[in-house]
Structures are given as structure tokens and as C-alpha cells.
């Protein structure tokens, strides 16, 4: 297994946000986390990368327990995060946003460079010197994904990549996820069950900080009873 969460408990102050989350990701998989607002989807991702460190339980990445490590060390081990609300650095240009995240390690040839990002995503190349704050929502999301790639992740965590984006942009983000899925292991959350099950191979459903259901994406697409029970807003 590339990533294993074993009975992870995370608190915000006294609020018990994750109440024993257990899940696994094999290398190369694309998995989505579903659940209603406040179910603990974002907190699960933040607990993996150390932004909200778990109080109990284990997070194992490629055989190493990482639940006690600071976020920057976890990121360096090969876990990238695309945070919700497209959190880029406003006030820095597109190129500078990428530069900040660039891994500079001696003796290793990085897979991603600013030039390679610009080759793959020409839209960002055109915006290279533009202030991040002036980008549209879709452009910011592209930049947030590109920035996370600069950290050379083997596991990519995407938190609500489509939140507040126009349908045409959502399509582009879907294509981007499919494209990255060929080379990177991914765990993402999404409000749209339709979108998530289209692009993921497997799904976990969270409710009140616990995993309540696990299924293949194809299976869950047909299983409207389960969808109604855990995911409908009504």
C-alpha cells in the first residue's frame, strides 16, 4: 500500500472532527472521498499532510509512519496538496508561485520544472508574469495544481478542485485529473458525486468523521440507495 490511515482521530480544539478514519490507497490508484459538508473530507486530507495532525492513529506513507511529522517534511517525502478555494499566493506572479514550490535537490533530476509546466499547460505560460490575484477561478486552480506538481509529488491530494468553478472549467479540471492519474496516485474530495465517480476508480464515503462505505466507483454509480442514504442533501 502506498498510503494507509489506521484509526485516525483528529480534533479542532475540543471538536472531534475525525473519529477513527481507516483507508488505504495502492500506488497508481485514483480514489475520491465523498460525504456531506462537515463529514471530515478536508480534515482527512489535512491530517495526511500534517496541517491538522492527528491526535491518535497512524498515517503510513510508503512504509513510514508520518503522523507526527511537520507538514514541510511530509511534503518533501512526496505528498502534494491542492488546497480548497484554490489557495495560491496572491501578490506573487504565476512564475513566482511556481518558483516558491520548486524542489531544489542536488543530484536529482526533477521531473517537473517551470519550463515543463509551461510546455504542458500553455495557458499558464501566457500568464507567467501576471499577479496571481488577478487570475480567474479556473486559472487559479490550474496554477494551484501546477504548483503542487512542482513539489514532485508521488501522491497528490486535491481538496474540492471544482468548488465554485464554471461547468466548462470543471470539464477541464476533470481532463487534468484523468491526465495526471496516468502517472500519479491521487486522493481527492468533491461535492459533486457525479464528477467524483466519473474520474475516480474507487470511493470512500465519510459521515461524522468515520468511513461508512467503500466501493468501486462503477458500483457506487449504480447504487442509488447508498447515494441517497449518505450523500443526498435532503
Amino acid at each position, binding site marked *: 500500500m502506498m498510503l494507509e490511515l489506521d484509526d485516525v482521530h483528529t480534533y479542532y480544539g475540543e471538536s472531534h472532527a475525525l473519529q477513527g478514519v481507516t483507508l488505504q490507497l495502492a500506488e497508481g490508484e485514483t480514489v475520491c472521498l465523498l460525504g456531506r459538508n462537515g463529514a471530515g473530507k478536508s480534515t482527512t486530507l489535512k491530517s495526511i499532510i500534517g496541517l491538522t495532525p492527528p491526535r491518535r492513529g497512524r498515517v503510513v506513507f510508503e512504509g513510514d509512519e508520518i503522523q507526527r511529522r511537520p507538514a*514541510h517534511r511530509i511534503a518533501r517525502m512526496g505528498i502534494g*496538496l491542492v488546497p480548497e478555494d484554490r489557495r495560491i499566493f496572491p501578490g506573487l506572479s504565476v512564475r513566482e508561485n511556481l518558483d516558491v514550490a520548486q524542489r531544489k535537490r542536488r543530484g536529482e533530476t526533477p521531473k517537473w520544472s517551470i519550463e515543463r509546466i509551461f510546455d504542458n499547460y500553455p495557458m499558464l505560460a501566457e500568464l507567467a508574469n501576471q499577479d496571481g490575484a488577478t487570475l480567474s477561478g479556473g486559472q487559479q486552480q490550474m496554477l494551484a495544481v501546477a504548483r503542487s506538481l512542482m513539489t514532485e509529488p508521488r501522491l497528490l491530494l486535491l481538496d474540492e478542485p471544482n468548488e465554485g468553478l464554471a461547468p466548462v472549467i470543471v470539464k477541464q479540471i476533470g481532463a487534468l485529473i484523468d491526465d495526471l492519474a496516468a502517472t500519479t496516485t491521487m486522493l481527492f474530495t468533491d461535492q459533486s458525486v457525479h464528477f467524483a465517480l466519473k474520474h475516480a476508480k474507487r470511493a470512500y464515503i465519510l459521515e461524522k468523521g468515520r468511513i461508512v462505505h467503500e466501493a468501486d466507483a462503477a458500483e457506487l454509480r449504480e447504487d442509488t440507495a447508498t447515494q441517497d442514504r449518505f450523500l443526498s442533501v435532503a
Partner: protein
Amino acid sequence: MKNAIVLIVLAAVLAGLVALPWVAPYFYIFLGTEVLILGLFAASFNLVFGYSGMLSFGHAAFYGIGAYATALILLHLEWPFLACLVVAMGAGALLALVIGFLSVRLDEVYFAMLTLAFGMMVFAVAHQWRSVTNGSDGIAGFMLGDFAPGVDWSLGDPAVYYHVVLGVVVVAAAVLYLICRSSFGLILRAIRQNPERVSFCGLDVRRYRLAAFTVAGAFAGLSGALMAPFLRVASPEMLHWSMSAEPVLMSILGGTGYFLGPFFGAAIFVLLESWITGFTDAWMLVLGVMLALMVMFFRRGVLGTLLDWVQGNHD
């Protein structure tokens, strides 16, 4: 085109500064020296404040230790001035490394309070450790010798000293500017905007903050080293917490978002102080009103507001 204009303006300002002793009244040599030194002090502070987003209230500690190091060396060892500058930078950096190591782990008001507390401790040491620091009288009676071994520029002449200060400050500002423009400076700006985002990009925020704090300490030490021979004394007032407030005020006055903002702020501060105290004792009242107006209406500082006005984007 825009860059060319900036370069021309900078060159003109620099030429004016070089020519100052020959064209301006004698008194302005002293004001100019003070502006340059305090400008460097404020610019070093702004690396921590404007670039990294940490409000330090203890920056005078590094300025003061630079001044004391210089005064003690000149008094006891009579080394050339250039050696004093190097030692003062090292002393400022070392003290900043220690204070920073203990402070940068805290955020916001806690960081500000901790740096203030350490600053007051350094002041207390200088004030009480009479055998070394001469207590509240400070260290005086030292003589400036050569600038470098065998280079005697008669530093005692105010005009010469002004030119030496100008040269040192220009070189130091250039180095500081290159640091701000480097990848390191970029990461500091990113940290100011959001430390969490920087951490999941794989960068140790604490280490970068400490590095910025230490570099700032070195340049503050350098400014203190220039100030001691100018005042002919290194005294505990240079370490007082009110001295730590000056670079804060100067940076905000000039504009924290611009590299030259703190220099601009220092110039306004020193010149206004000198003019206003000429006809009223209420200099602090005037300064207070100005600062309140700046913070309420002109957040970008005098330099920022001026540049906006020149470029015609009023907002």
C-alpha cells in the same frame, strides 16, 4: 521604459547625495548621515516586517550591539573602521540568531512581545554591566583611525564620514536588495501571505523566518556600527525599546511594500524632526498625527502613494 525611468531617478538621487556636502549647508551633512544610517536600520527591519510579515519590537538590540561592538573595538583595540563594521555585522547576526531561534516559532502578537522582551533584556544588560558597558553613560572617548589598514581618509571630518557612510549604505542596500529579489526573498513574501501554504510546498517556514531575522540582524548591526562614531558614543538609549519603534514608524511612513520605502521613511522622519523642532517642541504630536493619517488613509506609505500618484492609478 519604466525601469529606465526608475534607474534615472535613482542615479539622480545618488548624484545629489554624493554632491550634498558641497552644495548644502554644513548642517545637512549631519542630517544626511543620520538619514542614511537610520534608513539602513529601517530597511533591515523591513526584511523581517514588510517581506516576511513578522512585526519585531526588538530590532534595536542588533543596532545597539553593533554600536557597542564598534565603540569597544575602537576604544580598546583601535582596529581599522572596516574591521569594526565586519565584527558589528557578525555580532548583530549572532544575537539575532539566538533571539530569533527562540522567537520565530511564535506568531503575530506573541512574536512581537517576545522580541520586545528580549530587546529589553539586552538593554538591561548594557545598562547594568558597568565594568564593560560603562552603564548609562555608554562608551565614549574612542577615536576613529584608518578606514582599512593603511587607508587613512581622516574619518573625523564630517564630510568624509558622510561619504564613507553613503558608500557603505549603498553597498549594503544593494546586497539587501539582491537578497530580497532572490528565490529566498520570494519565499519570504510567500510566507508573509500564507505560512501554511508554504509549509505544504515542502519548505520549513521556521528556518526561513530565522534566516531572514538573522540577515536583518546583521544589517542592523552594521547600521549601529556606522552610528556610534557619528554620535561619538554607544549608549543604552540605542538599545531602548523606543529605538525599536523607530524602524517600525519609518517603514510604515515610507511604505513597507517597497524596498526603498524605509529609506524614504527615515528621510521624512529625520528631516521633519529637525524642521518641526525648530519652531515647536510638539514634534511627537505632529509625528503621531502623521502616522495616524498614514495608517488610516495611505496604507502604502508616502513612497507608495507618491508612485501611485505618478503612475496615475488613484484608488
